[in-house]
């Protein structure tokens, strides 16, 4: 039968990547002082599964590679080998290497063999290294089963006679409990009969009397004769499983005195070669290895940037299919069922409609509305993924970077099961990586500095996610030295970003780091930014419809909080009227809406209009001017409404005719259906079928400041 194995590849790859993640997490969790055997077991199981699958699905390169990892881990698991930091680093490197290999294979690209060989050499070096508690100098134990070796040897003696009189004589005497392993002599004989002509002579003299007979025991033995040109291993294979459960004697039918030749049956060297093969390979490559190993070990942290890029790639890949809890699917199917029932009920009402059925119709419509809402909720739920999809990559990042910086840092993950829309998950990865790197590099101090400041040597970075309202909040909290307000202001003045005598609140001072071209690190490192970072981070987060806040206390630490909408498909909006048009302002960016009086207005020559709100001057954007529509109430400020919004940390007042109401709107892409329009992030369809534009508040603020 031919079965197309490629149909299992996708599942196999997904499983491998999951396995690798589990292995990585396990390796990072291993505590040198106190080795948890269950953790080692988990890591071993990962390697074991990948090896088994890759062999079966024909990726022998992966199988060979994981075989070495498996052997190493197996020895660790059995306590035959000590777990060392070096070994862990080598294994971590191998995990990366495997991931690259699998990605290449998955994308049908050539595998970078040099890199693979390097990691393989490092693994083999580790395997043959001194950390082993026994067989210290011997290579990996190759167990050649004595049975396999000797028995086939015995059989060889007879093979020269096959041409004379082919056939075998087998004395088969099962032990009493052979049946209890599920083996059945009858089935074995059936197989023998398939190989050649079988004659069986049962010996029944051992069967006890009926009173003593235990029907569960096997009391019969057999003398068997099979004639035909049958290779020795085929006979042996049939009895393979009952080895140790019976007395077995296999002989060639005709026994003539004949010289035992050295000419071995083809099967023998084949068996020996495969069993013995790893030895020469191991020795050979370990000789050339030492130099490269250093490189391989050192490569880990250095490649951080590359790893990051790959991680981003992985996120995109993971997005092509998602795992959904079956409970969610069930809920969905349930809802669809309800909708169908309601629909058929409405159909019935409509069939012979008369005015006395209006009540029924109304009831049906109300039901339909409820079900549609539930259905929408269920569908959105399917797209929700736990944030651990993103978080799970960070322990490695922190491990690599902190060891490179020589800092001691513990990463705490809180609320990993908080769910967030798939589309947001994909886009939040990069900004988070950037922020965590910042905390690692600039936030947490060196161990000595921490001790001097009376803090524990190990710094803590906490990554926390939780739901608040219709939003998800992600916080990055470090207990480092915090932001230095004076330093920030000094730097900003030096760079000409603010006026010399500007008075800033703490919040405003911290916000300076989000300004383009601002970097406070004394010297640039390859780990975190070149001052192009934070403003990009903020822009990306605002592009997702979220915002970012920063709080810090000098000497105590910094907290960065990101607020994101749960989904990018639906948005909580405030409808506003400008002339005959309706626009949607994302609720998240609205601070407040007010009517203003003439007194608050302030015209600055050449700089447009502002109004004063609690001692702050806020620029006003006349919406009808920007969108070129006829205003409903003249253009008098006092007759309309000012919606105060915040974008990129800047407050701004949108002058509109009226507030219409809050509603959830489904976002339709304007770019896909029309083209990009500045100041507009998308469109939606209102209840009456007309189109309303959704405002891009940060874009509008930028637009108007020009």
């Amino acid at each position, binding site marked *: *039968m031919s*079965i197309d*194995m490629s*149909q*299992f*590849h996708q*599942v*196999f790859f*997904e*499983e491998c990547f999951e396995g690798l993640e589990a292995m990585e997490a396990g390796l990072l969790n291993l505590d040198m002082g106190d080795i948890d055997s269950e953790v080692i077991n*988990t890591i*071993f*199981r990962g390697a*074991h*599964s990948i*090896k*088994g*699958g*890759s*062999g*079966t*699905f024909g990726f022998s390169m992966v*199988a060979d590679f994981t*075989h070495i990892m*498996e*052997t190493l881990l197996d020895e660790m698991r059995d306590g035959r080998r000590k777990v060392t930091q070096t070994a862990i680093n080598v294994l971590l490197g191998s995990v990366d290497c495997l991931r690259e290999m699998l990605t290449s294979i998955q994308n049908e690209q050539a595998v970078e063999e040099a890199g693979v060989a390097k990691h393989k050499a490092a693994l083999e070096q580790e395997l043959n290294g001194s950390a082993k508690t026994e067989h210290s100098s011997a290579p990996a134990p190759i*167990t050649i*089963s004595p049975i396999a070796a000797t028995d086939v040897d015995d059989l060889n003696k007879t093979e020269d006679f096959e041409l004379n009189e082919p056939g075998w004589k087998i004395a088969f005497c099962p032990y009493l409990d052979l*049946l*209890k*392993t*599920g*083996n*059945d002599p009858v*089935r*074995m004989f*059936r*197989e023998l009969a398939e190989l050649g002509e079988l004659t069986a002579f049962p010996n029944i003299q051992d069967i006890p009397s009926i009173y003593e007979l235990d029907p*569960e025991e096997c009391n019969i033995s057999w003398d068997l004769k099979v004639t035909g040109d049958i290779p020795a291993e085929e006979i042996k294979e*049939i009895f*393979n*499983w009952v080895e*140790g*459960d019976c007395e077995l004697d296999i002989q060639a039918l005709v026994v003539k005195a004949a010289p035992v030749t050295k000419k071995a049956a083809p099967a023998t060297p084949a068996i020996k070669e*495969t069993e013995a093969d790893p030895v020469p390979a191991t020795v050979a490559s370990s000789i050339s290895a030492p130099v490269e190993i250093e490189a391989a070990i050192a490569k880990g942290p250095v490649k951080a940037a590359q790893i990051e890029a790959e991680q981003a790639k992985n996120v995109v890949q993971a997005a092509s299919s998602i795992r959904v809890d079956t409970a969610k699917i069930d809920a969905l199917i349930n809802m669809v069922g309800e909708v169908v029932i309601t629909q058929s009920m409405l159909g019935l009402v409509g069939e012979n409609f008369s005015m006395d059925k209006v009540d029924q119709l109304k009831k049906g419509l109300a039901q339909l509305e409820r079900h549609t809402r539930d259905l929408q909720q269920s569908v959105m739920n399917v797209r929700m993924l736990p944030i651990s999809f993103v978080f799970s990559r960070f322990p490695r990042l922190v491990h690599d970077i902190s060891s490179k910086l020589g800092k001691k840092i513990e990463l705490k993950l809180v609320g990993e099961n908080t769910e967030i829309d798939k589309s947001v998950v994909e886009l939040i990865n990069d900004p988070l990586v950037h922020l965590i790197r910042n905390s690692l590099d600039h936030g947490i101090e060196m161990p000595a500095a921490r001790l001097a400041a009376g803090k524990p040597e190990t710094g803590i970075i906490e990554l926390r996610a939780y739901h608040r309202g219709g939003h998800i909040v992600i916080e990055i909290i470090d207990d480092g030295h915090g932001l230095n307000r004076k330093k920030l202001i000094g730097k900003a003045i030096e760079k000409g970003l603010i006026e010399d005598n500007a008075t800033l609140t703490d919040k405003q001072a911290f916000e300076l780091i989000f300004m383009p071209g601002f970097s406070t690190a004394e010297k640039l490192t390859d780990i975190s930014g070149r001052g192009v970072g934070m403003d990009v981070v903020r822009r990306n987060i605002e592009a997702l419809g979220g915002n970012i806040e920063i709080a810090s206390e000098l000497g105590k630490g910094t907290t960065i909080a990101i607020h994101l909408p749960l989904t990018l498909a639906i948005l909580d909006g405030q409808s506003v009227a400008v002339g005959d048009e309706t626009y949607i302002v994302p609720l998240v960016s609205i601070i407040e809406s007010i009517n203003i009086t003439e007194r608050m207005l302030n015209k600055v020559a050449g700089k447009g209009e502002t109004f004063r709100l609690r001692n702050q001057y806020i620029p006003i954007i006349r919406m009808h001017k920007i969108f070129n529509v006829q205003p409903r109430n003249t253009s008098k400020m006092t007759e309309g409404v000012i919606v105060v919004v915040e974008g990129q940390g800047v407050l701004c007042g949108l002058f509109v005719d009226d507030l219409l109401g809050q509603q959830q709107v489904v976002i339709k892409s304007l770019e896909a259906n029309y083209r990009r329009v500045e100041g507009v992030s998308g469109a939606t369809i209102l209840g009456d079928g007309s189109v309303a534009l959704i405002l891009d508040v940060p874009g509008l603020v930028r637009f108007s400041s020009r």
Partner: protein
Amino acid sequence: MASVLAVDDSASMRKMVTFTLKSAGYDVEEAVDGVDALTKAQTRQFDCIITDVNMPNKDGITLIRDLRLLPNYKYTPMLTLTTESGMEKKLEGKAAGATGWIVKPFDPDQLLKTLKKVLG
């Protein structure tokens, strides 16, 4: 139609085994680990069990040992999926009551051929 319970924590292996056996006309049920398998084996009688050795929660060896204690599975053929290097595992499996083993990696034909050894 003989029924088979395929136990493996790896979804791809499980799928491959199931697909192969189903195309050969067997009635196949899947279990994700030993605990799952033991529950499923108690709800209906299978003619053969094929199980991976290394699994979380309950490994294949323990599963076989537990199943052999059940009157219904005293003589049922049980095969372990094992890697070539694991001769010790093969013997350990036998000691627990396994009928035999299938060596990984294997292709569908090997799997069917081996299964034919224990199912008539």
